[in-house]
């Protein structure tokens, strides 16, 4: 996949084009990608995605905790989809003030799209004035407007997935994403206290990102690093027992693996299931006991999943209805 951070440097004779923010690249977005790839193969023209690097709403309203997928994570997902060219300019003041007509002119001049695919609730240009109809007025029947995909009657949107993640419904969010919700980051050095608790951890600090995180607590997770993958448990939030309250810290203990030379390594963590809320203990030894209990509980659940997995490979909707385990949430 070719990645361009600027549309000025490209001039295509023709292409199939999808436009949108595609935050999360959820199953609705995946349908758009599938249609795009189908058309581009049929006509033997490149498949192009136009998406902003930073989310316009983060730029305009300076909101925090918004991305389901941070820009680099989104690029990775587009790669997996098999897109030919990804155009990802920074959303800036000139894009913010750009009239829908000027945006259309840029598309015509640089990409000459033969086929345009957008979602039904796609808006563009200053004050979100442009909509699918504006595109149809300019490109006629070259425009294909995709209806919002429904799941159990709910229209799938990034907004709904954000709400689910905020409320802690990891399972449903993952279903709508079509994969497990994940976080990628470089490993930072932590407080090195996990070692004394018999649970050494790798640590991330998401403070500088606008990534949305589910509520603080302990989660069963799957950890990907060095083309390896293992289960573990992750703590999101601070460490209240240690009087630390950074709410965008993630500490992950990887099961049955020695953690060595992990600093600065790029790691992906999928959150699979909520185990318990954050608790402040009076004594470090109580915390140590609780962590051992968490690890035992997590392993029990993972074993049940493994049994399920031999029957189906569908990881993200591993059913936990039949698990005889009392959870603080769900």
């Amino acid at each position, binding site marked *: 996949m070719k990645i361009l951070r600027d549309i000025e440097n490209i001039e295509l004779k023709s292409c199939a084009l999808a436009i949108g923010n595609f935050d999360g690249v959820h199953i609705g977005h995946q349908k758009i990608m599938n249609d795009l790839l189908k058309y581009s193969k049929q006509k033997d023209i490149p498949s192009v995605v136009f998406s902003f690097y930073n989310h316009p709403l983060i730029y305009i309203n300076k909101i925090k905790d918004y991305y389901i997928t941070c820009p680099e994570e989104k690029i990775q997902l587009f790669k997996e989809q098999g897109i030919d060219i990804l155009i990802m300019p920074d959303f800036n003041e000139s894009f913010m*003030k750009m009239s829908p*007509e000027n945006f259309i002119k840029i598309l015509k001049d640089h990409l000459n799209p033969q086929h345009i695919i957008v979602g039904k609730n796609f808006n563009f240009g200053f004050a979100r004035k442009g909509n699918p109809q504006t595109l149809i007025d300019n490109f006629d029947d070259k425009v294909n407007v995709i209806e919002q995909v429904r799941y159990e009657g709910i229209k799938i949107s990034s907004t709904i997935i954000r709400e689910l993640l905020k409320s802690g419904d990891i399972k449903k969010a993952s279903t709508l994403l079509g994969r497990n919700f994940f976080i990628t980051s470089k490993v930072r050095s932590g407080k090195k206290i996990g070692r004394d608790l018999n649970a050494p951890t790798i640590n991330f600090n998401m403070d500088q990102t606008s990534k949305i995180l589910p509520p603080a607590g302990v989660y069963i997770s799957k950890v990907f690093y060095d083309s390896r993958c293992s289960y573990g448990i992750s703590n999101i939030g601070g460490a209240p027992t240690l009087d630390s309250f950074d709410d965008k810290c993630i500490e992950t203990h990887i099961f049955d693996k020695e953690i060595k030379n992990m600093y600065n390594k790029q790691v992906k963590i999928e959150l699979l299931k909520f185990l318990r809320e954050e608790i402040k203990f009076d004594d470090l030894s109580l915390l140590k006991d609780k962590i051992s209990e968490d690890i035992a509980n997590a392993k029990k659940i993972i074993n049940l999943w493994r049994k399920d997995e031999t029957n189906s490979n569908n990881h993200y909707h591993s059913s936990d209805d039949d698990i005889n385990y009392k959870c603080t949430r769900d």
Partner: protein
Amino acid sequence: MLGILLINKDKDMSSFDVIRKLRKKGLNSKKFKTGYLGTLDPMAKGVLPILIGKATKLADLFQADRKKYIGRILIGKKTDTYDVTGNVLEEVNEFKMPSSAKIKEILSTFRGRIMQTPPAVSAKKINGKRAYEIFRKGDQVELNPVEVNIKSINLIEVFDKEFVIEVECSKGTYIRSIANDFGEKLGIPATLSGLTRSAVGDFILDNCITLDKINDVKDIKDNLLDINTLLHLPKLCYREPKRIANGIFIKNREGFEDGSLIKVISEENKILAIYKTYEGTLKPEVVLV
């Protein structure tokens, strides 16, 4: 109806003429209040944002402190209005047009926070009376200089007896006064011969439409910009619009910063009100429903 209509005003009509024409085209003035942001002189053209309905209550929020103008300055004449529509007070026919370098040098003295005397023919008030009313009666108008902020002022083009500048400035700045003051600094009189407002805050000329593109109320509605997407404020979703309409206080559960403005929206992402944070409580500032 609630929103902002961005009009590209023509020359030779007052700002209020624009509203008058919109009313003729079917905008119900009894039902919807209408106002505009920042008067444009009749001789000026360009961006004139029209606030419709309860959006008029938000004028202060949109009254951007960043306005951009393209002005044309004629050398050799001084007028009482500081622009070519006024009576000529002084005329010089034989003069050497200053070089670009000289023009730039003088322009640079206008940059930054400067004191500017508004023109006698202006809507500024003196003891409760409009300056232009006093002027037209034939009385002496004495206006005090006002501090304005000129963020940038650049020379664009030079002609025989005229030159074109681009100015980015705060509200309350008179480009006419810049033209007149330029003449004083140069030693040859000067006056404003053309003016286009190219931006009011985020509203730029590209996104404006001319009045001839509007035939009826439907055209007004189609071109109306949504207040919600234009107001760059933190938002709070509230499920019961009726209670917002009643002006209830809301607990600051989200931890919004004290003194900050918050837009309250419905579940359908419709703007309901602007609230202000007072310690632990959000209180209504402007209710829009």
